[in-house]
Structures are given as C-alpha cells and as structure tokens.
C-alpha cells in the first residue's frame, strides 16, 4: 500500500496546503510543523508558479508574494529538508507542470524520494499527458495524485483505474478558493469512483468551515483545505503557527 493510501486506512483524513515561501521560507517550515501538530494527516506543499491558472486569487497572491522573494524550486526542497529534521508528517507537492518539467521528471521524483515526499499533484497535467511523469513516479515509488472534476463524466473510469495514493475530487467548477455552496452531486461522483477503485477519495476546492468539512467527510475519505489556510497565514502574521494548529484541530474534530 502506498504511503499516502495508508493515511486514509482507519479514519477520515485532513489535508492542508501551504505555499512554500509565503511569507518566508522560515515561516513555511514553522507553518508546516504547526499543521502537523494540529493533526493534519497530509500536507500539500505548493511550489509557487508565476501563472497558477487553476488557482483563485488567494493562492495566486501567495504565489506572487513568494516569487517576489525569489523563491525557487531548490529553495522549496531546502524547506522540506528542514521539516524532515523535525517531522515525518506525510507531504506531497502541488505545483504546475512546467516547474517539474524544468527540473526534469526523473530528477524531480528522485529528489522527492530522497526527502520522503510521497507524491505530487499537478493540476495542469491531465491523464493524457502523464505517461512520462508517471513512469518516473513509479520508478521512485511515489504517487501521482489523480484529479476528478465535475465534468469528468466518462473519463472517471480510466482516471480511477490509474489512481494511487488518493483521488482528488474537485468539488466545483472554477479555480481554488472558498465557497459557500456546492452545486455538484459529490456523492454521485465518489460512488462512481468507488466502482472502479479502492483508492481513497478526498474532496477539495472551496472547503473552509467545519460544517462543510463534516458534510464532505460523509461522502469522502478526506477533505482538502487550501485557500483558507493560505489566507489565515496571510492575516495572522507571527501568530500563524498557533492559529493553524487550532484550526486543524477544529477541522479534525468536525470530520472524525
């Protein structure tokens, strides 16, 4: 069983997200550790990209803040190295295809394996374009997390059959960012996925309140929170680690 899949084995998982380098590399180390302390089961580390087209304004602004400080992919790997001195919390990367392509798919995966990063989520690398990266993730025993969208329809079967780690179900159309309502019939989507695979399913995009997290945990094996955490980090300043730990605890209670 893959490292990521194990996380979902006995309980509903809480997956958090931070943009590496926002507001600084030091703060990112502290914030990751704070999420882990609150009980985050898996943390997505965003490698900032100049043009994050799948992301809404909150995460895009965080990417920009990080890039204005000249954060590079190498810096992000250095952050992980520092986290690993203190914590074995499961980590995956979330970034765009070009950044991984520039490092080289194989080299990127090698460096992930070296730092015990369990896999990656690449929102602009759909099924049809994955072959090369997939080969590299398999070589290093990493998970290439598959995404399923409300529009995936007849594509769900082939995506589910390829999935390892977990399947990232996009709750709604559009970019990342908090939402108050979800139009998509998520139970129908998760039910269909489960016809084809026993890979766990986590729902992301828009979730920010404990009530939403609780509702999502009724249909999925985990919930993913991105923009809300990024916004909390932006607003809390020095208080961010403390608030992150408290926030994760509250969300964990809601989904347990």
């Amino acid at each position, binding site marked *: 069983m893959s490292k990521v899949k194990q996380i979902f084995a006995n309980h509903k998982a809480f997956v958090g997200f931070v943009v590496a380098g926002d507001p600084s590399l030091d703060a990112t180390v502290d914030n990751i550790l704070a999420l882990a302390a609150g009980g985050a089961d898996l943390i997505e580390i965003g490698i900032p*990209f*100049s*043009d994050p*087209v799948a992301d809404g304004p909150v995460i895009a602004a965080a990417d920009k803040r990080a890039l204005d400080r000249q954060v590079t992919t190498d810096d992000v790997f250095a952050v992980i190295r520092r986290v690993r001195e203190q914590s074995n919390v499961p980590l995956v990367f979330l970034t765009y*295809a070009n950044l991984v392509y520039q490092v080289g798919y194989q080299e990127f995966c090698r460096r992930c394996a070296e730092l015990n990063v369990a896999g990656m989520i690449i929102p*602009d690398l*759909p099924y049809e374009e994955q072959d090369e990266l997939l080969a590299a993730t398999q070589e290093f025993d990493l998970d290439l997390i598959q995404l399923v969208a409300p529009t995936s329809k007849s594509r769900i079967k082939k995506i589910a059959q390829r999935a390892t780690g977990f399947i990232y179900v996009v709750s709604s159309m*559009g970019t990342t960012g908090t939402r108050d309502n979800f139009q998509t019939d998520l139970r129908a989507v998760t039910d269909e996925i489960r016809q084809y695979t026993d890979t766990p399913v986590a729902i992301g995009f828009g979730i920010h309140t404990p009530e939403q997290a609780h509702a999502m945990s009724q249909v999925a094996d985990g919930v993913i929170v991105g923009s809300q955490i990024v916004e909390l980090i932006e607003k809390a300043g020095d208080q961010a680690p403390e608030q992150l730990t408290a926030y994760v605890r509250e969300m964990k209670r809601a989904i347990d």
Partner: protein
Amino acid sequence: MTTNGKFGGYGGQFVPETLMQELHEIETTYLKLREDPKFQRELHDLLDNYANRPSLLYHAQHMTEKLGGAQIYFKREDLNHTGAHKINNVLGQALVARYMGKRKLIAETGAGQHGVATATVAALLGMDCEIYMGKEDTERQRLNVFRMELLGAQVHAVTSGSMVLKDAVNAAMQAWVADVTDTFYVLGSAVGPHPFPMMVRDFQSVISIEAKRQILEATGKLPDAVVACVGGGSNAIGSFAAFLDDETVQLIGCEAAGKGVHTKQQAATITNGTDGIFHGMKSKFLQNQAGQIDEVYSISAGLDYPGIGPEHAALAQSGRAQYVPITDDQAVQAFEFIARTEGIIAAIESSHAVAYVEKLAPTMRPDQTIICTLSGRGDKDVAAIARYKGVKIDE
C-alpha cells in the same frame, strides 16, 4: 498535420481536468464539421460576403523599386472586416460554438483586434460575449475597448501579473473553467491546448490558400519567400500553411525583439525561448531557469506574448521555417516607410514583417517574389506611434 495534438514534440493538452471533456468534445465536433460541406459552405459564405474575402494580393511597386530587389506583394488581411486576419478564425470558431449549442463566447485580447472580431461575430450570431484584456492594454488601446463595448461585449480589465496579454489568457482560461458548459473560449492565436492550434491554423490557412492562387495568377510561379509577424503566430501559420510542402518557398516569421534581444524588454520567443509547458501546450517560452514565465515587452500589444504556437516551435526545430527578431525601432521605421511609400497604414504587428522585407528584398533578384502578410491595419496604433515619436495628438 497533428497526431494527438502534437506537432513534433510540441503541443498537447496541459489543462485542468475540468476542461478535458470539453476539449475532446470540441475536437470531435470540429473534426466532423471540417468534413461537412454544409459547415464549409456556411463558413465560406460568411468569409466572402461578410468578412470581405478574398483579400487582395497587392503588388507593392513603389517599395519594390525603392528596395531594388525582389518583387514585393502584400497579402492584405488589413482590408478584412474589423481590420485584421482575426476575423477568419473567429468566424470559424464561433460557428463551431454554435453547432455545439453554446450561447456565450469569451476571448482574450492583446491589442484588441481579436476582441473586436469576437465581439463583432457574437453580435452577428446573437451570442453573449465577454472579453478579457490586460488593464495595461485597455489603456494602450482605448478605442478598441470602446469598439467592443459598442458591439455589445463586456470587457474585463485584467489586473493580475503585468496586466497584458499573458494575464488576459490566464483570466479567460479561468473564466472558462468556471463556466465551461455554456461557454466557448474563442482562442485568438495558434496557441493553447489541442485542438485550438489545429483549428486556428485551419481557419487562418485561407490566407495562404488564396495567396498561392493569386501569386500563381500574377506571376505564374510560387513565391520565393513568405514573411509574416509572429506573436502567438496565427497569421503566420495561416500564411505558411498552404506552402509548407513547397520546399522552395522560404517561410519567415518575424518576432518582437522590443528594445533588443539582449535586453529584458523583448518577446523574441524562438530566438531566446526554451522548451516548457504553459497555457495548455508544450512549446517554446521566455522563462527563467526554474520555469517561471517571463513578463515580456513589445511596442505592439499583439506581440508581447511569452510563448509561440506549438506548430511554429516544431517548424523552427525542423528548420522548415526561420524566425527573426525585429526591434521596436525597426518596426516603427517600417510602419512609416510603408505608409509613405505605399499609402498603407499597417498594424505595428505587421510592420515587424515589413521591416524584415526591407532587409530581405535587396538581397534577392527582380525575378524573385516575396509575399508579406499585412495582418491588420494600423488605425489602432497611430496614437502609440505618436507617443513613441514624442508627438502630442488629440485622440
């Protein structure tokens, strides 16, 4: 031709999963329509009777004499309805959208020509229209913004990034992801995920299909060179398409070197770009070593794009086409030269191609010919040229 949306190693579909089903549906619909005589009749009827095709192939005698070399012909896309080649592609894509039952068109625009064309065709076909344009460009091209609004389109001034074409594409893609069921994204250049580069190439190939027939009628032989400006590269790929198999025809794309290819303020993608993945395609991009996409610059809002269509990247790699950088200074000089010599105010984009013709023609013999595509007319650029020259005019 494409295989799985690939041109050599370039192209593909690097987009969020939310769009994949839609891209497959567009591809399936388009491949069917491409072979459908009814669709082709409808498209060509609009091209001929609405867009004013075929466009002229004009023998530029004065320029030919002045430069003292090859015979120079201009393919006059500037004479099309809405004043640019953009209308060819928009008519095609809007018809595909209508066949798919869409009621809304969205588009990005740089200089505004593609936005104006999309707003125009939306009005003609009774569809809703929203245009995404970098805020910087809305200020550079205020007249075109007003034109789009007159035509009933809603113009969104995009304030992210450097507020130019790249950012307008990002915003349009995000709007499309949010509303993909009702909306058709009319991509303005031969860029983006498959099937767009193929569709745009096909719809713009009318330029070279006509030009080939016209030059054969005029001179009895193929041209020796075809020259066109390249941002994303839609008029260039349209100008090259029918000549790709004619090995004797030299194909030359002119890209924006801005303030010079050794400066940061340029957009010469083939000259300085490297392989990458962006805006749905694998192609050449101006980017840093880590893969962050550069903010680029050209005097021409239509050419300051950090990438290039994947078919151009493949043509450059195979050597079938050459790409040359042209600076702002050279383009402005050519803008004035063609205005005074031929009485044509050409778009500043097209003036990049004219600038290269000025270099190329004298190196050729009088029995040789060059076709240069005038992709659009320069009305929209007159104020920018005046600013560049420090002339104050009252808009």
